[in-house]
């Protein structure tokens, strides 16, 4: 268990008491600023390895010392183009996929641009500029007779400020006008204009969120993002897209230099459909909901004749709706996530669960069995995903709980591991088969972390049906979960497990950690433990309220501050 994370110390919690307050912000950033000067290497974006232990809490790994240049993900690229140019072509769908390192597509340490991706950026910008240029040309405020460099300059300054999410420097304007001038010699005004537009979209300030920061005048030695950079931090965290007009206005008038105003804007952004999309995007990655689809889940038609792509799609929709409801509509969302039997279904899924109600393809609220279907863990989508084509997989189910809900990474398999299951014998239950993992020491090291949890799910078959028997024997659904900060590790059935997880401090901490990674685009390091404890503590005090957790992320020093510009 050496690699497992643990909650921060009580000492760290005392720092957290003054949540969101400037005093605590300053206190924390003192440590951060000291860190950057003592260890220049700490910011090298090296936070990607999976097994960072919680043991050595040294300031050199300080949160605020991390790299801040973030590349737009494919989703962000599409959304940004949509906001900027009303472009609906979603060119990034054809880009090379983002690295799912840490389970999320936006991890800075994994964001590289290969020559292939650079080519894709160039081609997409060509296409988009070609399509968008005529409308933009028609909107130019200059008369047809004065379509000249000055006209393009005014476009570059105005449009450029939206595209690059900050005012352009004079040297940058000059360079862009150089592109226009060179091209317009042969190609004319329109061609020069289109190429300038293309250049804006291939340039780093469009594709990357580059921050230079500024000093905090009232607090010498401290730095924060500029107001425009803060607008960008907010819009990409909440919407996965560029700032809207209101955010740009609050950037231009400097309002976003005030943390409380940052919080107010975050709250405004939260009440927008784009925030719902972002939260759904978080869930489809954290809870692997996007994997509940046919190319990830294949079922043996002889064992599960009922399985179909349509049923799987319904299962996924249920999981998405249920999780979204817990997030947005339930004040104690964490508890609802693991214990609520209120769900959503269409006719197909209602028949699967054996509940009355929906008659068509539209999803409606349904009430499922309180004993068999409380919480996400008892629902067919995840149960099908974490299973074999012809049976259950206690290992996969246990791994999901261990890694995704407890945030406890697994050690690598031993060098001489053999992954083979023992021969299948007639009349044998899954529990009996996987027992071999316990007897073989090379397997046991890892499987003892997984199988005891997953065996508690044996009341649900590989498609997620509740079952009382397997292979003619009564199902034994006893399980055990250690390292989860629960009163007693033993449990019987996934329903009881859900109850335990709903009040587990380890789970709350893990939820905070997952959001931290997604929001800040990086692996948490040892020095982040204080901040994470702080976040988890506030999450506990809110009764497990998810929107509050998301807002809290915008009031952390990690969000409000940064290191000195140019510090190596």
């Amino acid at each position: 268990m050496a690699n497992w994370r643990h909650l921060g110390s009580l000492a760290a919690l005392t720092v957290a008491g003054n949540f969101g307050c400037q005093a605590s912000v300053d206190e924390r950033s003192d440590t951060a600023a000291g860190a950057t000067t003592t260890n220049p290497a700490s910011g090298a974006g090296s936070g990607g390895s999976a097994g960072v232990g919680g043991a050595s809490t040294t300031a050199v790994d300080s949160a605020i010392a991390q790299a801040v240049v973030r590349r737009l993900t494919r989703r962000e690229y599409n959304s940004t183009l949509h906001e900027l140019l009303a472009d609906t072509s979603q060119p990034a769908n054809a880009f090379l996929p983002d690295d799912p390192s840490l389970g999320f597509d936006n991890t800075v340490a994994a964001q590289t641009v290969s020559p292939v991706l650079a080519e894709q950026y160039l081609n997409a910008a060509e296409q988009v500029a070609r399509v968008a240029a005529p409308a933009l040309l028609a909107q130019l405020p200059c008369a047809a007779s004065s379509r000249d460099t000055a006209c393009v300059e005014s476009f570059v300054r105005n449009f450029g400020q939206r595209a690059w999410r900050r005012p352009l420097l004079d040297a940058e304007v000059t360079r862009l006008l150089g592109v226009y001038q060179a091209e317009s010699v042969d190609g004319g005004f329109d061609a020069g204009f289109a190429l300038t537009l293309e250049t804006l979209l291939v340039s780093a300030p469009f594709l990357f969120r580059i921050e230079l920061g500024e000093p905090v005048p009232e607090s010498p030695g401290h730095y924060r993002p500029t107001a425009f950079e803060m607008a960008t931090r907010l819009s990409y965290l909440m919407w996965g897209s560029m700032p809207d007009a209101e955010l740009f206005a609050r950037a231009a008038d400097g309002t976003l230099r005030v943390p409380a105003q940052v919080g107010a804007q975050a709250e405004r952004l939260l009440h927008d459909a784009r925030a719902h999309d972002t939260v759904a995007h978080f869930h489809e990655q954290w809870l692997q909901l996007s994997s509940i689809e046919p190319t990830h889940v294949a079922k043996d038609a002889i064992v599960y004749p009922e399985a179909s792509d349509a049923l799987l799609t319904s299962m996924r929709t249920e999981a998405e709706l249920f999780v979204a409801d817990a997030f947005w509509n339930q004040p104690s969302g964490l508890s609802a996530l693991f214990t609520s039997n209120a769900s959503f279904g269409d006719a197909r899924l209602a028949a699967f669960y054996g509940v009355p109600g929906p008659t068509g393809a539209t999803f409606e609220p349904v009430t499922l069995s309180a004993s068999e279907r409380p919480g996400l863990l008892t629902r067919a989508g995840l149960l099908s995903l974490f299973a074999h084509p012809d049976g259950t997989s206690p290992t996969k189910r246990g791994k999901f709980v261990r890694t995704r809900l407890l945030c406890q990474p697994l050690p690598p398999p031993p060098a001489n591991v053999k992954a083979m299951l023992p021969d299948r014998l007639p009349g044998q239950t899954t529990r009996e088969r996987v027992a071999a993992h316990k007897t073989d020491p090379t397997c046991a090291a890892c499987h003892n972390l997984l199988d005891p949890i997953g065996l508690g799910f044996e009341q649900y078959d590989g498609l997620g049906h509740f079952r009382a028997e397997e292979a003619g024997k009564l199902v034994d659904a006893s399980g055990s979960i250690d390292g989860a900060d629960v009163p007693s590790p033993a449990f019987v059935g996934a329903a009881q497990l859900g109850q335990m997880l709903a009040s587990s401090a380890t789970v709350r901490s893990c939820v905070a950690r997952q959001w931290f990674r997604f929001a800040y685009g990086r692996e948490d390091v040892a020095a982040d433990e204080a901040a994470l404890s702080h976040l988890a503590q506030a999450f506990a005090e809110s009764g497990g309220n998810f929107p509050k957790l998301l807002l809290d992320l915008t009031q952390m020093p990690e969000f409000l501050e940064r290191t000195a510009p140019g510090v190596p």
Partner: protein
Amino acid sequence: MKPLTLNRRSLLRGAAGTALALPWLEAMQPERRGLAQAAKAPKRFIVFMTSNGTFPERFWPMLPGQAEYPVDKPPSSAFFSGPSALDITDHVMGPSLKSLERYRSDVTFVEGLNSSGNVGHAHWSCSLTGQHNEGGGYESGGGISLDQQIANHLGADTKFKSLQLGVLNRTDGGPNSWFGQKMPALAENNPKRVFDRVFAEVGAVDTTAVDRLRRQRKSVLDAAVGQIGDLRTQLGAADRAKLQNYTDSLREVELRLTNATGGVHCEKPSIETGSGEAWEFESSNAPLLMKTQLDLLAMSLACDLTRVITLSFGYSASSMTLPWLGINTTYHDGLSHAPDNDAGAQANLAKADEWTAQQFVSLIERLKAIPEGDGTVFDNSVILWTNEMSKGNSHDADNIPIVLAGTAQGFFRSGRYVRLERKGEPRNGRPPGRWTNDLLVTLQHSMGIDAPSFGDPTESTAPLDVLKA
């Protein structure tokens, strides 16, 4: 939906293995930079990666007179090549690889290599890097992969330094190719995108338009690179590194803007499709995806658009099924995780091996169909076919499947079944034997890179001289 075909007016069409006339490739050679008329043809390096292991007893060749291993007999969990070395030419193809018989003189089996560093799934992303998997997503290659090392050596003058093609190759567990540590070179699974990218300029009638587009692109790229330069002094080291990476890639694109394509002698393939459905990431599309990617692979060699290509079929722990073979369970969970006594699953794994072998043969045939000099492109190539595991259901990392095709202009002596001696002490829980890195360094030598080791040097002891001519 309209039938999908890759049309080439005069190229590669016809019976398998028939070399069709391609005079243009010859004709274009003198025009190429660095290719004087008298110079030798360039070497090519191709990797064919398959995944999730094999049914070993039916995969490896047999000794003359040896009986076929029954498909319904459980594979031996103790399957292990014998301690004694073997180097024969009168071997008999294993039941799964009978399709290779036609090219037996071109193909060499190398048995007895342990995967360097990694076992099981962890070897997938490191098969070509020879480094230790560092875990987690794309973090796991550990360094540059062999194909990229070779591409850096062979790829200066071509339009593309290398190509990474995939057939249902998901990014889970990392790619096979790496530009460097934490620099994944991801495969493109969609043939239409490969086509659009690779053949964009081939056969263009309006060369003025091509020249103009190149000029425009250069202007855009220069401005983008310049902009980053202005910012540089204001950024911290980590930020600078991120943007330097982007600058490097922009420059790489720019450098290749003007590299020659096949020129007027090279014919452009065309992909006809009524909709994009056939290119979607669906298991049932795999046969057509594979055929089309192989076509594009061959054509990009014929047009000398690149000299290094890695084609990855599936991925480690793949959840793809193989419905065109009547296999409706998943490659990994359904086949590679079944116990030895699950005869149906093991037979299906053997069937999957048969199919991948046929694709390998098809790749050989395509290269042999492209005339070059007195022979074909195949004579100037070596193809590495490997897999991240040996025995599927045990995820064994000892005795990794290695099949080589081609001699790389006579560097290798082909047509053999070579079993390497296993001697010495077990290391790190692994049986005695040579590491796959020893093969990687040998391949590196075959392409003209004279470096003493590849990958983790502690597991790269010496080249496999026995394979050389």
